[in-house]
C-alpha cells in the first residue's frame, strides 16, 4: 500500500512555456506577424500531424491575440491567417461560454452563443471557398459543426472534405468523433464507431489510437456528469481503454507535443476507473505537464487525481 505522496507542484498547462517551437510561434504572432506564425505552424510537422493541431490551439489561446488579429484585419480585412485565427477565437469563446457538458444556458446566452457561431461559420465558409487547399478552415468547420449541433450528414461531409485534403488528419478524426456524439445531436453508437475505426487504423505509438479514449471520456463526462464511475468500470470499456493505452505506449510517440492530451485523458480515465497503476504511468509520462481542458474536466475527481499525480511524480519521471 502506498503512503500519502508529497504534494506535487501544480501542473503546467501552457505548452508554450515548455516547448520552444510553440513559444516562438506565439511570440511571432503577438509581435504582429500572423502570417509568419502560421508559416511556422506549417513547419512543426506535416499538415495532418496532430502537432499542427496543438500549435494552432496554443496560438489561438494566446493572451493578447485578439488585439493583434483586429489590428491586422483593420489593415487588410482579407488577411487569410487573421481571419482563420479570428474564427478560431470565436469558437474558443463559444466553447468557454457553453461550459461543461450538461450545463444549462439561458435563452439570451444561447442566442448570443449561436450568433457568435454563425459569425464564425460565415468567415470559415468564405475561407474554404477562397483557398480550397487549406485544411485548417475545414478543421474549424468540424469543430463549429459540433458546437452548432449540425446533423451527422453535414458533419461527415465536412470531414470528407478535410480527409480529401489530408487523409487521416488526426484533429479532424477527433472532431468528427465529437461532432457525431450526443450532444450535439448524434448518437454514441455513431461516435464510438467512428472512434474505433480511427483507433484501429492507427499505428502503435501514434496519438491517433487514443481518439477512442477521448470518446469514452466524453461519454463518461456527459452520462455521469463527471461524478459516477460506473461507465468507466464497465469491463468492455476498460478493455478498450487498456488496449488503446497499450498500443499508444508500445512505441515512442513520434509527435513533439501532441502526446500531452492523450496521456492526460488516459491518466484521468484510469484514475477515475480505479486503475491507479495505469494512471500513474501516464502521469509519469506527462511530468510537469497536463492538458488543461482535460484536467479541468475531471470535476469531482480532481483532488483524488492530484494525489495520484503527486504519488506518480514522486516515484520518478520516465516517459
Amino acid at each position, binding site marked *: 500500500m502506498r503512503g500519502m505522496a508529497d504534494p506535487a507542484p501544480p501542473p503546467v498547462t501552457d505548452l508554450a512555456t515548455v516547448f520552444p517551437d510553440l513559444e516562438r510561434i506565439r511570440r511571432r504572432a503577438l509581435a504582429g506577424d500572423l502570417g509568419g506564425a502560421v508559416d511556422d505552424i506549417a513547419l512543426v510537422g506535416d499538415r495532418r500531424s496532430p502537432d499542427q493541431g496543438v500549435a494552432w490551439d496554443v496560438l489561438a489561446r494566446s493572451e493578447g491575440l485578439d488585439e493583434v488579429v483586429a489590428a491586422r484585419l483593420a489593415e487588410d480585412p482579407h488577411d487569410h491567417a487573421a481571419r482563420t485565427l479570428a474564427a478560431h477565437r470565436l469558437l474558443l469563446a463559444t466553447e468557454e461560454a457553453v461550459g461543461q457538458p450538461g450545463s444549462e444556458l439561458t435563452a439570451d446566452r444561447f442566442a448570443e452563443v*449561436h450568433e457568435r*457561431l*454563425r459569425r464564425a*461559420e*460565415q468567415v470559415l*465558409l*468564405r475561407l*474554404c*471557398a*477562397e483557398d*480550397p487547399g487549406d485544411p485548417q478552415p475545414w478543421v474549424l468547420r468540424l469543430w*463549429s459543426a459540433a458546437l*452548432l449541433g*449540425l*446533423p*451527422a*450528414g*453535414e458533419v*461527415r*461531409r*465536412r470531414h*470528407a*472534405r478535410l480527409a*480529401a485534403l489530408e487523409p487521416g488528419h488526426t484533429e479532424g478524426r477527433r472532431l468528427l468523433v465529437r461532432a457525431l456524439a450526443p450532444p450535439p445531436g448524434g448518437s454514441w453508437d455513431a461516435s464510438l464507431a467512428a472512434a474505433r475505426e480511427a483507433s484501429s487504423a492507427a499505428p502503435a505509438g501514434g496519438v491517433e489510437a487514443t481518439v477512442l479514449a477521448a470518446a469514452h471520456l466524453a461519454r463518461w463526462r456527459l452520462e455521469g456528469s463527471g461524478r459516477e464511475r460506473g461507465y468507466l468500470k464497465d469491463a468492455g470499456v476498460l478493455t478498450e481503454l487498456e488496449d488503446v493505452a497499450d498500443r499508444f505506449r508500445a512505441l515512442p510517440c513520434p509527435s513533439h507535443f501532441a502526446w500531452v492530451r492523450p496521456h492526460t485523458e488516459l491518466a484521468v480515465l484510469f484514475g477515475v476507473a480505479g486503475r491507479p497503476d495505469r494512471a500513474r504511468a501516464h502521469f509519469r509520462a506527462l511530468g510537469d505537464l497536463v492538458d488543461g481542458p482535460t484536467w479541468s474536466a475531471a470535476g469531482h475527481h480532481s483532488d483524488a487525481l492530484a494525489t495520484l499525480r503527486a504519488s506518480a511524480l514522486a516515484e520518478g519521471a520516465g516517459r
Partner: protein
Amino acid sequence: MTAVHETRVCGLPALHAPRDDGGCAAGLVFRVGGADENLAVRGVTHLVEHLALRAAGLEAVHRYRALDDVVTSFSAEGSPEHVADVLNTVCGALRRPPLEHLEEARDALRAEEEARPDAQVRAAAMMRWGATGRGLASYPEIGLDGLDEDLVGIWASAAFTQANVVLWVSGREAPYGLDLALPQGDLPPLPDTAPVLPRTPAWFAVPGTDVVQLTGLVPRGPAADVLGRLLQRALAHELAPSGATAQVRVEAHDARSALVRVLATGTPHLRDGLAGAVVDALARVRWGRLGAGDREAVTLAEHDADRPDHDPALLEARAVDHLLGRPTPSRAERVAALHAVSADAVRAAAEALHDSALVQVPTPGLDWAGLSAVPASSSSAVEGREHPVRGGGRTTLVIGVEGVTLRSAAGLVTVRYRDLAAMESFADGGRWLVGRDGFRVHVEPTVYELGPDEVARIDEAVDAARVVRLPARTADRLPRPAEAPAAARRGLAGRLAGRRGRRG
C-alpha cells in the same frame, strides 16, 4: 443582315428565321399561363391548352413544364402542310374549344397532377410568392371540377387572342394555307410578383424528401448563363465524393430576370449533407479563384449558343422574349457576349443569386450559413369570437369580421377575407381558407366548437368568385378534434394538402 425577320402572318406578329435545308417548324406562343389565374380557377388555361392539343392530336406528347406559368406554347414540326394543319387546328380549337371533350381533358390534367415530376420541390414558388401569380405553380388545380363549359369558353376567348401571341416560323417561308384567326384582345401585363417572403436568403424544410433545391433571381444575360455553368462545375466538385448529383438550370423569368434553380438529389443517408454542399458550391463561385476549368465551361456555353437562329427551341425562346418585351441578340452577338463575360460580372450574378436565394432542405435548417427561416406563422391575429377545439385543448379558432385565425401554442395562422386567395367549401360545412400569402386555415365544425351560423357568416364575408364548391365528405373522412393542426405546422402539409384531404 439579321437572320430573323419580324413580320406579320395572318395578321399576327411573327418571327421568321429562313432556312434552306428543307426543314419546317412553327409555333404559337401566347402570353398567358397559370400565373394569370386565381387559385379558385387554377387550371383553366391548362384545360384550354389541353382541349386545343387534343384537337390537334398532340395531347399525348404534351408534358407539364414548371416554368410555363406565364406563357402557353403550341408547336409543330414536319412538312409545311402538317405544320399548317396543326396550327390551324389549334387556333380553331382556341376560337371554339371542343367542349364535348371537357371531361377527357379534365382527366388528363388530373393524371398530370398525380405524376408531377417536381412533386418534391413544388412548394418553393408558394413560399416565395404566396397563393397568387407565380406562386400558383405550387398548387394543385383545386378548382378543376368546377370549371364549366361557360367559364372555359369565356377564358379561351379572353386568354388566347391576337394581342398576346407571337408566331414563330423556322422554314423557307411561312407554311402555305395558314389560318390563324383569333379573337381581339389585350396584351396583359405580367402578374404581380411581389414576394411574400419578408427576407432572403431564406430556407424552409420539407421533411421526408431527399433533395435540396435552391432558387434565386439574377439579372438576365450572359453572366447568368455563365454563372449556371460555373455553379454546375462547383457542385460536381462538392458532391463527387458522396455520389449525390445536382442540376443547375437558368431560365427566363421576365424581361429582366432569370430564375436559377439548383436541384441536388441524394439518398436518405446523404441528405443532411446536401444543403452544405450547395452552400459551399455557391460560395466557391462567389469567392473562389477561377481556373482553366471555368474557362472551359464558358467555352462550352459559347458552343451551345452558337446555334443557327432557325433552331426551333431558340426561336420559341425568342418569341417568348418578344412577348416579354426583351430584344434578342443575334447568333454572333450571343457568342460574343458570352466570350466577353468578366469574372466580376459572374460574381455579381452569384451575389444576386445568394441575396435572393430560397433553399428547400430536408431537415432544418441553414441558419449557420446565414439564411433565415421562412416564417412559420402569421404576424397578427384577427379579433373575433373564440371557438376552442372540441374536447379541450389549447388550440383555438378565432372567427371575426375581418377573417379567421388559428391560435395554438405553436403560433398564429391568419387568413383575412380581403386577402383570400381561395376558399374550398365542402357541403358538409368544412371551409378551407387560403390567404394570398399562402397560409391556410381549416374551419371544421367537427373539430372546433362552432355551428352552421358561424360557417354562414364566413360564407357571407367571402368573395363568391374565390369559392371552390366541393361535395360533402363521407363520415370517415371528416376530421376529428385530435387532428387539429398546430398553427406553426404550415410547410407543405399545411398549405398544399387540400387535394389529398379532399379526395382521401
